């Protein structure tokens, strides 16, 4: 099938998708901008670490410095003129954007005509994409709660006193990698998938594929217990139950094992990453037990998302643990 540029243009030029197209450029730019300043500071740190005399006398910033200058300047005008300038620039940007692009307005709301695909606003598409991998109570309720709480505990579990108030990469490798994986890899990337890849019926369309509302995916999703052929038939005579009953119980019990294995393996992995270098070990020793448990729990839960994505998209496995009440 030929590459459908028109389809790409249609998605990218939908007025409400413009912010996410902008984010595609803005997010990498600021990532580069932050890391560039971080690397510049790292070079300075390397010099100071190697030269005790310089560490005492040198100005410890990459910014220009003259001993004659005052360390602090008047807010008015030096800071506030920048603020006013930025406010004017933002206003101009908004004006131009509003004059050139109209806010979308579809037909009047009609519960009888379903939009296909029916998409949430772009900033929630990461959560909607998560619906593919988890049941709604996890994707829509538990995960958002975990994200919010997880963000809020960051300052209380990050025991690394370095890098407070300046850009650095080397002094905070682990926390920066964790945040980048979470923010860029799991949040922004999921939004991009939800915007550009997911078409009618929330089916996967590669860029350049035409969004075909008639397409039917014959899903062969299986649960993990089906892969292993668990049906519990041998349990039935022992407990004097029907085969169906036995199968339900067998599956519910079987599902606990891969979950426990995941938690153990993930915990070992997280622990290995957290104590990989001499510096990490030092930080690790500063942490209280509560801090450690909290951090490991959130990291393991965070890891569960890419694992579930992998299982679903590559191995077409739907549930790991099937119980009569809920499935994971």
């Amino acid at each position, binding site marked *: 099938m030929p590459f459908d540029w028109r389809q790409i243009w249609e998605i990218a030029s939908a007025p409400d998708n413009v912010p996410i197209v902008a984010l595609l450029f803005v997010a990498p730019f600021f990532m580069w901008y932050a890391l560039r300043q971080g690397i510049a500071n790292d070079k300075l740190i390397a010099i100071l670490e190697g030269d005790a005399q310089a560490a005492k006398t040198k100005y410890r910033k990459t910014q220009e410095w003259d001993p004659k200058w005052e360390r602090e300047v008047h807010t008015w005008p030096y800071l506030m003129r920048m603020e006013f300038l930025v406010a004017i620039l933002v206003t101009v940007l908004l004006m131009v954007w509003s004059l050139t692009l109209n806010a979308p*307005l579809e037909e009047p709301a009609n519960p009888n005509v379903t939009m296909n695909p029916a998409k949430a606003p772009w900033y929630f598409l990461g959560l909607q994409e998560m619906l593919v991998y988890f049941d709604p109570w996890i994707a829509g309720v538990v995960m958002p709660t975990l994200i919010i709480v997880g963000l809020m505990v960051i300052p209380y579990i990050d025991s690394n006193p370095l890098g407070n108030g300046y850009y650095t990469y080397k002094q905070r490798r682990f926390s920066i990698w964790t945040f980048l994986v979470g923010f860029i890899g799991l949040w922004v990337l999921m939004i991009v998938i939800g915007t550009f890849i997911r078409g009618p019926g929330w089916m996967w369309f590669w860029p350049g594929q035409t969004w075909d509302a008639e397409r039917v995916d014959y899903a062969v999703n299986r649960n993990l217990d089906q892969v292993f052929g668990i049906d519990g038939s041998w349990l039935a005579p022992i407990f004097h139950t029907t085969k169906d009953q036995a199968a339900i119980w067998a599956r519910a019990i079987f599902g606990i094992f891969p979950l426990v294995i995941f938690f153990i393996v993930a915990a070992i992995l997280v622990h290995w990453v957290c104590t990989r270098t001499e510096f990490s070990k030092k930080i690790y020793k500063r942490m209280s037990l509560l801090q450690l448990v909290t951090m490991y729990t959130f990291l393991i839960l965070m890891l569960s998302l890419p694992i579930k994505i992998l299982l679903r998209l590559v191995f077409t496995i739907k549930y790991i643990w099937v119980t009569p009440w809920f499935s994971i």
Partner: protein
Amino acid sequence: MPEENGDGKSKTGVLEKAKDSAAALRETLTEKAKQQATELKEPEKTQLYRSIFRVKHDEEPRNRALSVLSNVFFHLHPAKVNRDATKYNFTWGMGGITFYLFIVLTFTGVLLMFYYHPSKVQAFRDILYLENDVPFGKLLRNMHRWAAHLMIIAVWLHMFRVFMTGSYKRPREFNWCVGVLLMVLTMLLSFTGYLLPDDQLGFWAVTVGTNMARATPLLGNEGPGGPQMGMTPYNDVRFALLGGSIVDANALLRAYIWHCIAIPLIVAIFLGVHFWRVRKDGGISGPAPVMLESEIKEERSPRPVILRPSGMG
């Protein structure tokens, strides 16, 4: 006196006198007018100016500080800031841009409210009216929409910057938490506004969004433990959000009130706390001098943090 009155000469004298004084008056008036005109060129020297701004306008350090400190809008700032923090490259201005966009959104939002009825009969027509008949109505709606999207991006980038500079570390831990809540509130503000045009886009987006609430554990009728808690489509958490079991008139009214009154009020309170804490925690975090690994001190717990309000030398 009467004789003098009869005298023609003295009459001319009076006339002359009057002429003289008129001329003098003209001169002094022009003088005064000129003087006041020159004064107008420097309105900042007038008492009117002082009565409004409370300080003399002089290029003196003291007055520069006072003009910030004695102005209700400016005094969010300290009088003096870290020299390197005035450059763009450290903060990217994202927090300020977010706040500015909040103001823009409040302004355009209030104007939009003049033309909008949150009822099923009127809502969609009001948007059509706004787009086609209200002067600059289309521009107004566009600005509100794009400012909202821009604000979300600005909030995310602000959080990203704060993380990358480690600015959430001691003593700013709590302010980071306030910031996380503000980010969530920003997204909720945008989401509740989505339904208000009452078109297909908003209707289905909100349908998809609130359908997830059905699955809330214990509180949703389709969530684990929900039915056991007695949850039905008519009493669960989704019902509370929508004011009904479907996205309809009540949902529109609830979205409107959350969007225009409740959440902005909550945001305003959290914003106040957020800004106040920025100042109390010692102003913005940097650019701070780099710290070396060899300088890490042994952890003493609990360590009191004594703060110096920023700008106090």
